[in-house]
């Protein structure tokens, strides 16, 4: 054949005008558009409110006043800003590192080796997600604090009057935050490791590499894009986190960027301009990170080695080090779950706050449990909470399923959808709460003060997490399975419903459970958005906490965690049965 001397032969790119538009005209165009509209409707109004609040003064009656840059000016004029920024950076980076190291190594051990007690790791992750942060953090502080058993023992052993651990330090904060988020890292990375191509590792072993060599030179490098994406995600979350910086940083006089913001929101009424300006700046920074993240998570596919065909997971035989792996899982259990639960159990059994000492044992009482069971309204709260959390989780999973599918498959508008869905990650809860409140008040239908509003708020707030779960899930489905549905005549919705959803169900279930669990304990928004008829559990717990009913709080928290665990276990059992049926396992 004689190649015709056309532009083609010259290798020039052939991209007729409107080629990009053609993508939109494709069968997924309408779905992209619809998902985009829903996402925009969810994310952009709060963003607009945020911008407005950050750019206006507040009149005494709380209405927005004149345009001003004062909030930004104040932000940057603060002489302590650079110190706080530095602290924030340290805190976010090292906490991310701790989460990644701890959660990541754990995920690897659980997914890729024959270490014993793997179930325990999952149990730990799930229960820990069901336990309110505040309980967690206070439990750790209680244990490692000045009067905690560890410093107590140290004093009695060494005879000194000082302390061994000072949790009210930057390192204390980093550790606590790191541990707090390691279950999430664990759950998401274990999916990555599960999907890894075992032959890559075996080839290294056959080449004479020890297990450590193999992990360091092969496994980690191959999972690198996924790890990096995960790291960015956790980093962003840490950067905007409030709980730990405030609970630990304030007494320790360690100011982070968010500490100030938090204090501003504690004024009466909260000074939202400041917080909003901060959020806007954060959105800018995080926007850059998100772009980076988008690029990284895209290249994660390059190494995606799963096709599903002939794939058998083959764990490493750790030999005697098996028990070291088991020990790590045990340590994780103790640190993430065991110790805090012991602390909670102790406080729930003592009549008033007391350090853990043998001397206090005779005074132990069940009165706190009696008190909890004596309050009938907890039942309503529990029902409300379950409804709201389940509603938010369901909606978030549905929306992010569409968004993640479009994004992961590079359909029209995919990147935009991904970023829209990830954006709420940077809204501080209270700011988002205010935005939602404003919007609900302006809504033409009765939304304000209903459970719907809380669910909506949770939906926006936790969409980014749903997105992560769904996105990595979609990447694991062999593309041809979907294409076969298209060729067989199914439209995008049909493909999604009949093929993608069933195949994705394990990832979707995990995502659902995750959102459900963290939504059930979310506080800052719940306080603002709940009306008299729509109180949720977290508000009640907050009430107990501010009233110093620590014992009752612990009792309630423990019971709540128990309920959540039962719920999650049931859910997993059902899920497993469901997917066992689906996959013939």
């Amino acid at each position, binding site marked *: *054949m004689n*190649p*015709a001397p*056309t532009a*083609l*032969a010259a*290798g*020039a*790119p*052939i*991209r*007729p005008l*409107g*080629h990009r538009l*053609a*993508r939109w*005209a*494709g*069968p997924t165009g309408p779905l992209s558009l619809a998902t985009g509209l829903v996402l925009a409707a969810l994310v952009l109004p709060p963003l607009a409110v945020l911008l407005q609040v950050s750019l206006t003064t507040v009149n005494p009656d709380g209405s927005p006043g004149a345009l001003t840059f004062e909030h930004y000016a104040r932000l940057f004029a603060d002489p302590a800003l650079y110190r706080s920024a530095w602290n924030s950076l340290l805190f976010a980076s090292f906490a991310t590192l701790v989460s990644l190291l701890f959660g990541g190594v754990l995920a690897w051990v659980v997914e890729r080796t024959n270490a014993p007690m793997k179930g325990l790791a999952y149990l730990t992750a799930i229960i820990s997600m069901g336990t309110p942060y505040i309980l967690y953090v206070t439990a750790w502080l209680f244990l490692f604090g000045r009067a905690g058993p560890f410093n107590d023992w140290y004093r009695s052993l060494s005879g000194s009057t000082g302390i061994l651990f000072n949790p009210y330090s930057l390192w204390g904060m980093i550790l606590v935050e790191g541990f707090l988020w390691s279950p999430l890292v664990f759950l998401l990375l274990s999916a990555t490791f599960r999907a890894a191509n075992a032959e890559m590792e075996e080839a290294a072993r056959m080449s004479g590499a020890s297990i450590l060599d193999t992990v360091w030179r092969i496994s980690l490098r191959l999972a690198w894009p996924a790890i990096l994406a995960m790291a960015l995600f956790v980093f962003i979350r840490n950067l905007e986190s409030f709980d730990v910086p405030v609970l630990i940083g304030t007494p320790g006089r360690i100011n982070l960027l968010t500490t100030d913001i938090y204090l501003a929101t504690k004024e009466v009424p909260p000074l939202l301009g400041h917080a909003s300006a901060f959020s806007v700046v954060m959105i800018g920074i995080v926007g850059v990170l998100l772009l980076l993240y988008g690029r990284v998570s895209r290249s994660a596919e390059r190494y995606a080695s799963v*096709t*599903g*065909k002939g794939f058998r997971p083959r764990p490493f035989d750790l030999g005697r080090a098996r028990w070291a792996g088991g020990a790590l899982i045990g340590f994780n259990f103790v640190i993430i779950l065991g110790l805090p639960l012991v602390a909670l159990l102790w406080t729930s059994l003592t009549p008033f706050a007391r350090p853990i000492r043998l001397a206090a044992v005779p005074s132990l009482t069940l009165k706190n449990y009696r008190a909890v069971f004596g309050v009938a309204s907890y039942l309503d709260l529990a029902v409300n909470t379950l409804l709201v959390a389940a509603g938010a989780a369901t909606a978030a999973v549905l929306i992010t399923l569409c968004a993640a599918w479009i994004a992961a498959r590079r359909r029209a508008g995919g990147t935009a959808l991904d970023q829209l869905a990830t954006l709420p990650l940077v809204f501080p809860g209270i700011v988002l709460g205010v935005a939602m409140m404003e919007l609900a008040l302006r809504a033409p239908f009765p939304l304000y003060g209903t459970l719907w509003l809380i669910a909506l708020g949770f939906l926006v707030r936790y969409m980014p997490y749903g997105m992560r779960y769904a996105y990595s899930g979609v990447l694991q489905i*062999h593309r*041809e*399975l979907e*294409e*076969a*549905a*298209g*060729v*067989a*005549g*199914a*439209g995008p919705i*049909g493909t999604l419903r*009949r*093929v993608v959803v*069933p*195949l994705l169900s394990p990832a979707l279930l995990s995502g659902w459970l995750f959102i459900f669990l963290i939504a059930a304990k979310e506080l800052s928004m719940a306080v603002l958005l709940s009306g008299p008829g729509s109180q949720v559990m977290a508000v009640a717990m907050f009430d107990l906490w501010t009233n110093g009913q620590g014992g009752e709080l612990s009792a309630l928290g423990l019971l709540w965690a128990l309920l959540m665990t039962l719920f999650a276990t049931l859910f997993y059992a059902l899920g497993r049965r469901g997917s066992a049926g*689906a*996959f*013939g*396992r």
Partner: protein
Amino acid sequence: MSPATLQVHKLSKVYPTADGPAGGVREASFTLEPGAFFTLLGPSGCGKTTTLRSIAGLETPDAGSIRLGERVFFDAAAGVNVPLNLRHIGMVFQSYAIWPHMTVFENVAFPLRVSKQQRYDRAEIRRMVDTALDTVSLGGFQDRSATRLSGGQQQRVALARAIVRQPRLLLLDEPLSNLDAALREDMRTELKRLQQQIGVTTIYVTHDQAEALDLSDRIAVLNGGRIVQIGAPRDIYFRPQSSFVAGFVGATNLVHGTVQAGCGAEAVAPVLLADGQVLHCLFPRPAAGSARIAISIRPEAVTLTPAEAPRRDGWNRMQGVVATSGFLGNMNRYGIRVGDAVMQANTGPEAIFPVGAAVGLHFPSDSAVAVPD
């Protein structure tokens, strides 16, 4: 529906990469008669799958047009692009893409359940699925979970799914490449029978020349994104138009030389080799004197004899020494050192020459085909 004529015209689809557009397929044109079995053959990465996916609607081509019967599927100039789910095409993927969460029955029934053009009721679906499964000899497997099938069975489920709606066009992307040799042969026979039975126009993608030659009515050989030859299997095999086709479609020995005297099409003419030997070759196309050409000699066309055997009439004879010998079961394969080159020769399993033996290589003139160098 009755099969229809498929017309692919100047189809181009290249992929943007960091170093500019690459891969894909460029300016592919062909027309398929209704009921034809057409094969795209070529080495890995030559653009076979891209072509197939463009026809299926899984890729949006950059240029060209695709029409089936009177229906325009795609026309870059006119801006027409029918979504894939409305094209009514059956396709079997290389990985089969059997949905693991469904039974065999549900897999095959899927195209009927999602059909937009026509609603099928339960009884109809059951009847059509049963028919399709019977056609691929999988009657009775209806309720088996799709994950509990062997490779060959999966392949047949994929086929049943592709034909259940009686598509106007059937696309098969290397459907046999995942199977082991014995199964592959069985399935090949099966596939051929099936296509003849239902008479659907079929495009088959493979890189296995034996498969292509065995199954097809017509073959298009692709290389580097372009179609380099289209023709009937025997044309492709016996009348390659380039040394690439000669070498890719079946093993061959290529010998280089100069045409001694110009000749017309389908004529036998002498060719002078570098070492001074003269071979008589078949020229499928006219050739000018003193043009440089290559001669393709199939290993199975070569008969080996002890060195002293004379040249037969109308045959060529070369002289060499056995360099390697291999036993392939149904034949022996010899590498014969002739001058600097090693020529391959296949013989029946009974003829045995030891390595180092001097042998004569004999082949008829019409088995030495001239191709452009």
